[in-house]
Structure formats: C-alpha cells, structure tokens
C-alpha cells in the first residue's frame, strides 16, 4: 500500500528532523533510498527545485516525492506525514507543557541532538557532493572533471562573496550560477 508507506516514511522524516530543512534532507534521502522511490540524482535535482520554489523546503520535497509515487493523494499523505509531528508537538507544548523545553533534562537531551544533526548534515552534504562529482566509492568511477570545475567555481564565489559582502551567499544564487555553468560546460 504505497499511500501508507509514503505517510509512514515521511512521518519518520517529520519526527526526526530537528532543526529545519537541512536536517530533514539526510532523513529524506535515507527514506527514499530505503523504499527506492526516486534516484539519488533526481532527489538532488529536486532539493534545488524545493529551494527555489515558495514554501517550506521540507514540505516541497515531501510533496514532490509523494506526487511522483502516487499522484495527488501521494503528495497529500507525504506532506501530512512530514507536518503532523511538528503540529502535534507544538500543540502539546503550547497547551500543556509550556515549561517543557526549558526543563534541564530536556535541554540536556536536545543539546546533544543538535551537534549530532550538524555531523549528519555535513556528512550528507559531502556524500551528495561526491555523487554530484561522479565519484562512487562502490564502483571506483573517476570524477567528472567538468563537475569538479563547477564545484571549484562555486566555492570560490561563495568565499569571495563572503569576504566582500560580509554575509552568506543565498542558496538560490548558488543554484542559478551552477545552472549557467552546467549549460556552458555540458552544452545546449
């Protein structure tokens, strides 16, 4: 029953993604690969689309994966799964446990989860970057030189921009530049 699987799979994402969209990406990647819903390549394409379209990135990703597997009902159930945990937890905190989050025990648990999430995000980013560069650990395939050039240019732009403007480069601009570089290097 694909609809139930979508709901439960994304419930897992919604329940364990502490700290926003980037924290959700590792879990979504894992869930879609476990179930074999879409390829890693298409997932990374859609992360970029989700960043560049309105609305919460997590909801956008869930809707896409759901729609790709089971049309509109799939989109609705995947989104419901993603949203339900934070909705319920927030209601509980608002209505019942106002002090919950500031309790020292809870704080101790959360303060250990945060650094764990950071490690997971950086590892996932690197794995996805290697995939984007065409480097596979299993198959021993060499890197795609054009992709390496794109990565080098993007890093350079991000670093220079940060030095000059004193603020981080927006992800949407990074995506736009990489799209132009992709068209230039891989052809029309």
């Amino acid at each position, binding site marked *: 029953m694909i609809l139930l699987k979508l709901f439960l799979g994304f419930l897992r994402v919604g329940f364990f993604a502490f700290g926003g969209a980037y924290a959700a990406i590792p*879990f979504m990647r894992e869930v879609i690969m476990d179930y074999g819903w879409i390829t890693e390549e298409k997932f990374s*394409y859609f992360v970029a689309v989700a960043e560049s379209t309105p609305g919460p990135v*997590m909801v956008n990703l869930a*809707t896409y994966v759901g*729609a790709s597997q089971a049309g509109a009902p799939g989109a609705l159930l995947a989104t419901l799964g993603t949203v339900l945990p934070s909705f319920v937890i927030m*209601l509980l905190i608002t209505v019942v446990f106002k002090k919950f989050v500031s309790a020292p025990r809870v704080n101790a648990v959360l303060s250990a989860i945060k650094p*764990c*999430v950071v490690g997971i995000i950086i590892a996932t980013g690197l794995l996805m970057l290697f995939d984007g560069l065409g480097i596979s650990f299993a198959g021993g395939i060499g890197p795609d030189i054009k992709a390496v050039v794109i990565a080098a240019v993007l890093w350079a732009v991000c670093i220079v921009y940060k030095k000059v403007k004193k603020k981080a480069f927006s992800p949407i601009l990074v995506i736009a530049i990489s799209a132009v570089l*992709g068209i230039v290097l891989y052809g029309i």
Partner: protein
Amino acid sequence: MEKRKILWRLFATFFKIGLFTFGGGYAMLSLIENECVEKKEWITRDELLTVTAIAESTPGPIAINCATYVGWQQGKFLGAVASTVGIVAPSIIVIYLISLFFDNILEIQIIASAFRGIKVAVGVIIINAGVKMLKKMKRTPFSVTVTVLAFAALTVIDIFAVNFSTIWLIVAAGAAGYIAFAMKNRGGEGG
C-alpha cells in the same frame, strides 16, 4: 459566524506567507513577523522569539511550528489546523503542478545540462548550511565529539551500505546527552 471569519483570516494570512517566501523557515520568519506581529497583532515579538526557540528544539518545519502556535492563540484547535493548512497549501499546489511535467522538462538538453550543474551546487549548499550550524553551535569537548562521531558513523553507513537508520544516531546522541546530564548531577540534587 465570527469563528468562521477568524479561521478564514488565519488560513488566508498563512496561505500568503507560504506563497511568498522562498528558501524555507528562516526566510519565512520575517514575513510571519510582519503579518502576525506588526499588521495583525496576533502575537507579540517576544512570543515569536519564544516560538522560534521552541521550533529549533522540536522536529519538523519551523514554519509549521509558528503557524500552529499563532493559530491556537487565535482560534484554538481549528485555528491551528487552518493556519497549518494555509501555510502548506501553496507548496502542495505549486510542487504538484511542477511534478506533473518535471520528468519531461528534464529531457530537454539545456535543462538537463543546467541540472547537472545544479546537482553539484546542492552538495555545496548543504555543506555550507552544515558548516554554518557548526560555527553557531556551542562547542564543548562533548558536543564536538558527538558531531565527529555522527559524521563518521553516517559516512561509514553510507559508503558500506550498512543497514542502519540515521534515526538511531539521533536517539543515541539524545541518550548520551541525558546520561552526561545525570552523571553531572549525581549526588548533587539526588536524582
């Protein structure tokens, strides 16, 4: 009648917020502040700050936490539902429409080339986001160890295709945090 009006206004306001913010949670907060604090005075700025702090400590999209909180304050359970549905609806509609022709446009050569470049960017963006969080994080020997272990564990799991869910890393980190806390307080306050 009055209640229905409140629900409709909650839905419409959050629909607008969902439709006009790009880039997710934090970009959304400024629009939420503008609409819910300044224009409609549904909540105070302090309340929004508290909700943001709670949102960072709870799973799921930050925008959903804010919508749920504001909705409850204005219209209890149905208000929370109306706000949450409102903020999610634009995403569902826009992404559903994109999903209908996404595979087809990927077959166009120029789009395919653009996405081969974009694929590289996504890795860069995620690493940047992670590094930014690392810089903001309170770095103690304990927290840095947790970060390094989580990084190493996920890398090994992925490369060797070990059948082990990332969820357990979160659970283990939470347990370690609790044990560290309990050990520090042992004898101090008696439990």
